[in-house]
């Protein structure tokens, strides 16, 4: 590739990130210009309430990234705001005031918020945690912090808070510019971030967290780091808010502000960046105007709008407006960037000298129901092993036990000499396991290229601010992408693909992990004969040319016969036969199991 001159699409792809950066910069400059002139056009009261709204909008953005993009419903973002605000108030009240103290208080607030974020993240995000649990923890957080403030007595000002501490009594315009510059900076960074490689990972986590783990993405760690980062931004916003208003109260850390943030984000449009920003500013400013005349009615309107939006327009108001506007102007939404495909040499993990997969006495039971018992077998390099058996024999359960250390109830799974232990799926991927699910479980709202890139998480650096213009795939994955016509549809969202293409993409993603051991659960279910033969060809070439180990669950005995080098027959949670294709497929036992005789195991001694 390196020797060739750049092709036209390649040059275009390389220019895309820069164009994206320029677009964001142009919008940023436009917003800055607006920011500079605004205080001279607006009256003092409006500028005053706008400053507060600008800080709150930055906080709302952090809620949006956690909830709108990543799917973590958080009630507790106000807590981080409160930590930053109280850091400011406490330092200025009790310790000192001046530029040095201000920087100290800001850093203190951010560090404290990051520590809280780390604690919350560690509590809320672990492998197998339900999404609800994160909401519970983020609900508990502001309640606990508010009580801590209450318990602080005169030090924290208890329920009346702290006010009148020394601060910079700059002109209103200066504060407006500070708040606005902060918001513009956070917004621009957020736009670049959510559209970057990493931003797509967040969406993937929202859409299907479990699948992400099987692509080797450390979901829990990403969520924890995100919580910490969003906490830091929230604390910075809180610091600015406190320094400007010169008042802090327990409400700033409270659960009610946390829910208000959700309302602003939902109305503005979750999963967009500009929506929550404008939503927050519009609602907060209107609230301030109406708080004198119609306080209850206004809150009633907001509550009603919130319920309506959640029920009828879950994407929020702004995206709907945008869609209508585009329709009016006959403009299409901006196309998603398409990377150029490049082949990369695959170097699957695993020690040459070790046996790829050793399974010893693996068991699985659900309560008293024994689904797997005493499973023992080994898979060598370059073997294509088919698992056959009637429904309910435990084939899929066995596959599950190989790809997730938490699944098995007993026994050992050893990959290249390393015990899998109770490792979660993302660490199993690092050992060389690639698992394809029975149903193509991919991300409906991501494009083909974005899905393929997700599988490269373990192997490549994911940019935080741009879409990498080149997508590197190992040869086998690239071959599937090209042969099934996916290469021409890289920018198409997955939900528009046919069933066959989805299955092919799913398989290409598994191979893009560069696994040493591939676990496939009925990869050909529902495919046409041609598609099936193509997949068979790819699998046999993987085994022959790259010496991978493939473990296949399959019902179609003809397909098994064509491609396997070995077959294992399972029945009622046990292995009843293990041998070459000829030995197994034509045995009387297999015919009997499939025909449904009741005591096949007694004959198996033969």
């Amino acid at each position: 590739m390196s020797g060739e001159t750049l092709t036209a699409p390649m040059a275009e792809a390389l220019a895309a990130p820069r164009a994206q950066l320029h677009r964001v910069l142009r919008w940023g400059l436009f917003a800055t210009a607006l920011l500079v002139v605004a205080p001279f056009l607006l009256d003092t009261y409006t500028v005053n309430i706008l400053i507060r709204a600008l800080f709150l909008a930055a906080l709302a953005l952090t809620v949006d990234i956690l909830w709108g993009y990543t799917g973590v419903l958080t009630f507790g973002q106000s807590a981080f705001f409160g930590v930053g605000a109280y850091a400011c108030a406490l330092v200025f009240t009790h310790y000192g005031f001046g530029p040095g103290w201000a920087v100290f208080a800001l850093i203190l607030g951010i560090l404290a918020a990051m520590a809280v974020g780390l604690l919350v993240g560690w509590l809320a995000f672990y492998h197998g945690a339900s999404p609800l649990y994160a909401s519970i923890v983020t609900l508990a957080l502001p309640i606990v912090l508010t009580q801590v403030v209450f318990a602080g007595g005169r030090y924290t000002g208890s329920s009346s808070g702290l006010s009148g501490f020394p601060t910079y009594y700059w002109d209103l315009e200066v504060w407006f510019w500070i708040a606005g510059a902060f918001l513009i900076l956070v917004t621009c960074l957020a736009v670049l971030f959510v559209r970057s490689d990493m931003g797509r990972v967040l969406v993937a986590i929202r859409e299907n967290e479990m699948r992400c783990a099987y692509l080797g993405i450390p979901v829990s760690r990403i969520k924890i780091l995100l919580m910490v980062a969003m906490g830091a931004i929230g604390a910075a916003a809180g610091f600015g808010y406190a320094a400007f208003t010169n008042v802090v109260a327990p409400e700033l850390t409270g659960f009610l502000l946390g829910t208000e943030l959700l309302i602003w984000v939902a109305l503005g449009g979750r999963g967009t960046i500009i929506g929550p920003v404008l939503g927050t500013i519009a609602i907060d400013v209107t609230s301030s105007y109406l708080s004198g005349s119609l306080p209850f009615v206004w809150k009633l309107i907001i509550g009603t709008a919130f319920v309506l939006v959640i029920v009828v327009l879950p994407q929020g108001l702004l995206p709907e407006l945008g869609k209508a506007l585009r329709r009016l102007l006959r403009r299409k939404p901006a196309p998603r960037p398409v990377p150029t495909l490049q082949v990369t040499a695959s170097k699957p993990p695993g020690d040459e000298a070790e046996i790829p997969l050793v399974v010893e006495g693996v068991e699985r039971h659900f309560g008293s129901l024994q689904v797997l018992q005493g499973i023992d077998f080994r898979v060598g390099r370059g073997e294509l092993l088919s698992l056959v058996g009637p429904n309910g024999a435990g084939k899929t359960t066995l596959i599950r036990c190989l790809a997730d250390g938490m699944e098995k109830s007993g026994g050992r799974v050893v990959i290249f000499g390393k015990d899998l232990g109770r490792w979660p799926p993302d660490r199993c991927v690092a050992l060389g396991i690639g698992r394809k699910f029975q149903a193509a479980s991919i991300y409906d709202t991501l494009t083909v290229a974005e899905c393929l890139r997700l599988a490269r998480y373990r192997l490549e650096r994911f940019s935080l601010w741009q879409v990498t213009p080149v997508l590197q795939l190992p040869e086998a994955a690239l071959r599937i992408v090209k042969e099934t016509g996916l290469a021409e549809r890289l920018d198409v969202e997955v939900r528009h693909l046919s069933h066959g293409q989805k299955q092919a993409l799913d398989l290409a993603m598994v191979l893009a992990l560069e696994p040493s051991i591939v676990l496939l659960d009925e990869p050909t279910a529902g495919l046409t004969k041609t598609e099936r033969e193509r997949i068979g060809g790819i699998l046999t070439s993987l085994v022959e040319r790259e010496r991978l180990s493939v473990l296949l669950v399959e019902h179609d005995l003809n397909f098994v016969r064509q491609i396997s080098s070995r077959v294992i027959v399972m029945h009622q949670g046990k292995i009843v036969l293990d041998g070459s294709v000829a030995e197994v497929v034509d045995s009387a036992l297999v015919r009997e199991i499939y025909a449904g005789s009741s005591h096949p195991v007694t004959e198996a001694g033969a």
Partner: protein
Amino acid sequence: MSVLILDIVTTAAILFTVATGLMIILGVMKLINFAHGAFLTIGGYAAYITTLAGWSPWLAIPFAALVGLVLGLVVEIFIVRPLYSRPLDAILATWGLGIIIGQLITIAFGREVQFAEPPVSGAVEFLGLSYSTYRLLLVMVALIVGAGLTGLLYFTRFGLNARAVIMNEDLARGLGIDSTKVRLATFGLGAALASMAGALITPLISVDPNLGLPWLVNSFMLVLTSGVSIPGLLIVSLLLGGAQVVVSTYLSPIIGGLTIVVLAALILRIRPQGIGWGGS
């Protein structure tokens, strides 16, 4: 010491009564009703209206339940039904509903604190102590509610259908159970229970538009920790409610107010399914 035990038992009874409405909805509908606090508030105002009208304070309880039932049915049809497949959104929509109810109450009755007449007052001699009659009465109420719900779930046609929906909604529908109707009835029942609980607790606290809020969070935590079962809820009400009383008495009421939330969050970290006593 005996006072402490009575405090624990009566607090647990109150928590149990307040949380049952939330639990029945979560159990059958897999839905977290964040309007639960608002339904408690509605019950509180129903009791207040009873006092205003000069009716017997005993009437407050059925009156609150009736108001809750009617509102619950309306809410289920218009707000909850479209959100079956979006559980996190259902939390938000019901929270928004709570805001609406709170504002309507504020517009109708103002923000001032009101008081409702208790059905009984004073203290009785109990185990050699003088203790609030009303709090002891609430223990009876909790037992009746618990027994009544168990009876409803295990000895009636509705209970059979509801349990079928709990275990496997698709299969239940396949067997000809109208799960939509079961859900409607469940939400109505849950809202009625919440309103009734609101009326029951108002003699102990004052009535204001935000009456339900602190109870919502505690109920939510208790229900999740209980593993969504009636005996489980009884046990966690006693354990966590007891911890709250002990901490409030010996340490500080402020930290006491946090006990349930913090303990529940920690218990759920270790056992995500709750204490899981007594099945589902």
